[in-house]
């Protein structure tokens, strides 16, 4: 049975070759040519120190597919001198031949091997590269990656998720038992009935735009849940709705939602698949088509609820130009100013997610909003404590305050 610390023929060959190159090169290094003029071209090879103190450690909290390497770079790897052009990582897998797994630039002092396998044993070496040679570091001890079943580095995230999730579930349960919960008024949602009524009175259609993302985006889901509430009102008022979409799955989901709203309202015959049509997945192709629809059909009301990107202002300004009442909402902070500037009402961030619960007036859904508020209250307290501690710690050099800041950073850091 092979000893784990033995050096394989592959490594031996590599080391002997390097040694031979050094022996052959050393006498010629710096020799003068026959004409007595020193030229660098006569130098066969530049000698540099090899990297040192190479260690390999198992990467913590992974599935056994990562090993971390760390070393001290060659002392000749100095700024401006440039004799070391980079580093080459060698890996020997289960006593096999050493293979190159990565080439790194000069100054590198660490590497993460993300292609290891459970049950395999690895030995690593790092070579400092010059223009013509390699200078090998020590070999690491043989190491096998290990699998961890629980990622304890995310323990604080788990506790925060437990707190917020627990608060949401707790308030849903409280609401289920019949306790009345206060939820502040959201102007944009209060205006939904008026907006639908306006379209009914004017005899013009309502345009619903669910953003340009697919069903795997929670903003699209939020937009569609609001569509469920709005389309019931639309069906009750017997108004026309049109929903151009940029994703096929959103089209099928949108059709199901509107169809069921018309059925609930007792007007199934009024529903048509043409109310929801697929345009294109291309962002600006979709915008061009929707702008065209707006200008031709002149809807009285436009809902822009979902995930929007650069097209947000183009759509909202066109809606503004045709004089439609516009209710917009997105969870992308970069697009919010555009909606605020161009639309009558804007659901800012969390209001988009709260909208369906708010419109449904379902106590259980409203309970979840209260749970969300607990999360916000905790965040506010932590921010105030953190700001005060950081300010006092910096201003008066109070070590306990600085420690508190460090603890908060550890708990809430996402990196």
């Amino acid at each position, binding site marked *: 049975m092979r000893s784990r610390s033995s050096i394989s023929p592959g490594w031996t060959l590599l080391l002997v070759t390097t040694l031979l190159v050094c022996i052959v090169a050393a006498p010629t290094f710096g020799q003068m040519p026959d004409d007595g003029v020193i030229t660098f071209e006569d130098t066969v090879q530049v000698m540099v120190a090899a990297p040192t103190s190479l260690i390999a450690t198992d990467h913590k909290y992974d599935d056994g597919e990562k090993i971390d390497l760390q070393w001290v770079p060659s002392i000749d790897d100095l700024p401006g001198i440039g004799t070391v052009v980079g580093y080459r990582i060698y890996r020997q897998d289960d006593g096999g031949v050493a293979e190159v797994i990565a080439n790194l630039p000069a100054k590198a002092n660490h590497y993460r091997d993300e292609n290891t396998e459970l049950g395999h044993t690895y030995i690593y070496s790092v070579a400092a590269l010059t223009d013509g040679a390699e200078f090998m570091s020590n070999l690491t001890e043989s190491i096998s990656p290990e*699998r961890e*079943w*629980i*990622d304890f580095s995310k323990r604080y995230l*788990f506790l925060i*998720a437990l707190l*917020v999730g627990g608060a*949401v*579930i707790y308030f*849903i349960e409280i609401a289920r038992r019949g306790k009345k919960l206060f939820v502040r008024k959201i102007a944009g949602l209060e205006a939904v009935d008026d907006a639908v009524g306006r379209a009914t009175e004017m005899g013009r259609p309502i345009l619903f735009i669910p953003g340009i993302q697919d*069903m*795997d985006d*929670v903003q699209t*889901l939020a937009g*569609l849940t609001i569509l*469920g509430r709005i389309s019931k009102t639309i069906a009750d008022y017997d108004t026309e709705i049109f929903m151009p979409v940029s*994703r*096929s*799955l959103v*089209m099928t*989901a949108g059709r*199901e*939602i509107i*169809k*069921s709203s018309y059925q*609930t309202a007792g007007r199934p015959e009024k529903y048509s698949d*043409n109310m929801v*049509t*697929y345009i294109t997945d*291309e*962002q*600006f*192709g979709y*915008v*061009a088509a929707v702008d*065209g629809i707006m200008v*031709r059909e002149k809807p009285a009301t436009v809902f822009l609820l979902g995930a929007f990107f*650069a097209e947000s*202002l*183009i759509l*909202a*300004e066109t809606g503004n130009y045709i004089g439609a009442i516009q209710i917009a909402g997105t969870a992308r*902070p970069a697009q919010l*100013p555009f909606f605020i*500037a*161009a639309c009558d009402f804007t659901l*800012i*961030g*969390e*209001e*988009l*997610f*709260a909208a369906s619960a708010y419109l449904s007036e*379902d106590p*259980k*859904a409203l309970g979840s*909003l209260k749970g*969300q508020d607990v*999360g*916000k209250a905790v965040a506010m307290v932590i921010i105030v404590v953190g700001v005060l501690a950081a300010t006092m710690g910096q201003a008066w050099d109070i070590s306990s305050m600085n420690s508190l800041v460090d603890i908060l950073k550890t708990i809430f850091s996402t990196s």
Partner: protein
Amino acid sequence: MKRQIPLFITFFVGTLLIFSVFIPPMETLGENFTLFFDIIAVFAFFLGAGNLVRVHVSKLRKRKADWGFSIVTLIGFGFMLFVGLLKIGNPGGIAADVTAPGSWFQEMFNYVINPLQSTMYALLAFFVASASYRAFRAKNREATILLMAAFVILLGRTPLGMMLTAWIPDSLSIFQIPNMAVWIMNSFNLAGQRAILIGISLGVVAMSLRLILGVERTYLGGDDSG
């Protein structure tokens, strides 16, 4: 049953994905589910494409307003489908990547779709101007403050801002317009953005829990009772 099965799948997959964040052997589960979603979305695309053709053929047949545009749409759709499926002009032949340089499909993308998209994107500049004009009218106190902040940032990001206040000594450099612009962006703007982001994150958590627990079920279609 039609509603119970989707609700169970949502609960099971949602719970599994939450726990996968904390269990390293399951950490790639999210990516795998994304792949499943992509596969489903590809099949759903046939529905979308079918709908597109049906709508425009119907528009043509009934000679609805602007039916001429439907001809362009159908020809464009059919042509791209044809050159993409048969890989016309593709240097690597039928086995090569559909977007290989030189293929008709890629050429159409480079010389037709890209310029058209850029044209639409360019419209944004004009829309920003008209929206800014409305947003920055000093109608009340808040709008006036907004106008002043916008003016400082606009000046601060141009050479003119630096030229106008270059004479201010270094000890009072905070009053140089570019520094004021940075201060507004890094203090007020960033604080506001982070507040919104915290709200959004909590909103996503609450929304996700409503979906996982089956409290929110409108997205499935049908009434939401129960």
